[in-house]
């Protein structure tokens, strides 16, 4: 059944005179795993940053459960607490241990008691396989481990939807797998996810919906089987041909 969590309506973003996103329109329903694919510079990451209000939109609106979050009536911080984000460069807090990274948001933003926050942090760290490392600092663990902690940190806020901004692009090839495995297990838990990715296998096999972007517009979207086997647009076809033959 249709149950839209996020609706992006006529979103445009310009940096100076450079139009990065042009009239973007799409919907994320509960339980969807949407992959956004496309060439570098097509505006995928900017779109995700706009959705999390890290960038201000030039025009358009973002509806969260039908309520526009861009107009200042909705508190941006409260909205962000429900919309998790995982960054390409992890952005773990360098001054805190792994455990504290996963607790601080719960304690200070959601006002959860320390013991409960700790339990919940441990639960999610365990889920991503990082529970043994709770006393480590971000500088002391590998890229893949950092990204898994970052996912646990986002999950610990118990968000309704999780945004991933190229979560494996900054990782060494041998670490990509461990992060993708975590994401796959989240997908099988019916977590709603919006993933900007260059991992075509993930987009094809795990996601329920694929959005292909080119030059700041959504060129084509649909079921992964259709996009990957029988794309309508020429641009989609040539992009997939290029990237899958690499």
């Amino acid at each position, binding site marked *: 059944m249709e149950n839209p969590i996020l609706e992006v309506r006529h979103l445009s973003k310009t940096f100076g005179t450079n139009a990065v996103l042009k009239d973007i329109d799409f919907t994320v329903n509960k339980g969807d795993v949407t992959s956004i694919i496309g060439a570098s510079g097509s505006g995928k990451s900017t779109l995700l940053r706009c959705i999390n209000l890290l960038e201000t939109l030039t025009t358009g609106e973002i509806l969260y459960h039908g309520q526009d979050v861009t107009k200042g009536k909705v508190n941006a911080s409260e909205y962000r*607490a429900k919309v*998790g984000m995982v*960054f390409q460069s992890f*952005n773990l*807090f360098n001054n805190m241990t792994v455990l504290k990274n996963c607790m601080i948001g719960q304690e*200070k933003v959601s006002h959860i008691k320390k013991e409960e926050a700790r*339990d919940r942090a441990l639960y999610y760290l365990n889920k991503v396989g990082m529970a043994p490392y709770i006393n480590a600092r971000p500088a002391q663990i590998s890229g893949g481990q950092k990204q898994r902690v*970052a996912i646990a940190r986002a999950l610990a*806020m118990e968000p309704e939807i999780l945004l991933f901004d190229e979560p494996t692009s900054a990782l060494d090839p041998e670490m990509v797998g461990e992060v993708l495995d975590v994401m796959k297990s989240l997908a099988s838990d019916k977590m709603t996810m919006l993933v900007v990715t260059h991992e075509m296998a993930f987009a094809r096999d795990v996601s329920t919906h694929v959005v292909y972007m080119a030059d700041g517009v959504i060129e084509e979207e649909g079921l992964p089987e259709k996009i990957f086997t029988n794309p309508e647009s020429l641009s989609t076809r040539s992009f997939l041909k290029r990237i899958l033959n690499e």
Partner: protein
Amino acid sequence: MLIQLFSDIGKLWEKYGSVYLTGIANTLILATVATLIGCVIGFLCGILKTIPYGPNDNIIKRFLLRLIRIIIQAYVEVFRGTPMILQAVFIYYGLPYFFGVAFKDIWTVSILVVSINTGAYMAESVRGGIMSIDVGQFEGAKAIGMNHWQAMLYVILPQTLRNILPQIGNNYIINVKDTSVMFIIGFSDFFAVHKMVSGAVFKYFPSATMEMVGYLCLTLLASFLLRKIEKKMAGKSNYELVNTDQLVMTAGTYSLPKDAASPFDEVNKDIREGK
């Protein structure tokens, strides 16, 4: 010659030792208190100066923030750009001139002058320290729902403090030495003792030697302590792995299969069998 010098110093110490020690104590107290207050001022200015505002914010907020930035910049330029000895004179004699009230306590005015002087230097250090933190730290904080102040307090400032600790140390050492200019308004610090004693007994060189050695000892001690603090703030260089099973139990997520025995049974069995 050296023997002569040592015997002079000995005589000075015998007669005025306690005065010199009081001077050292006064210098240290003034430098420490003023550096701490200066840090607070510096952090306040640095934080206020880095509050972001954009074209989407309302006009009052933009105006206020711009005004704050201008005021802080003026403060920094004035107190960084004039000699502290002059600032001391200016404030000490300026206040009675305009308001007819003199400072009753030389300590108050000394701490005030050195603090705002230090604050002017620290303001720029703090601003630089905040700007040197990767913007991703801010975005990470915002992404889990922190507002600007929470992100500052829990994520940015702790890292800033660690990064600018060498700067704070620099300022502290400068203050230990430069509080000597406060003799101009009659503050009896370590250097003021030299002026007083050598004026009384005409032993300029032996007294100056004592001062040199004294100041050097103070600053060496200060830099030693600061390095200790820096090391402590850097945190542990290693970490211990935590036994996963125990963790899962404490996390309250470990649900035993109904037909399985308690995990402690195995241990009990070992005990029963006398292992």
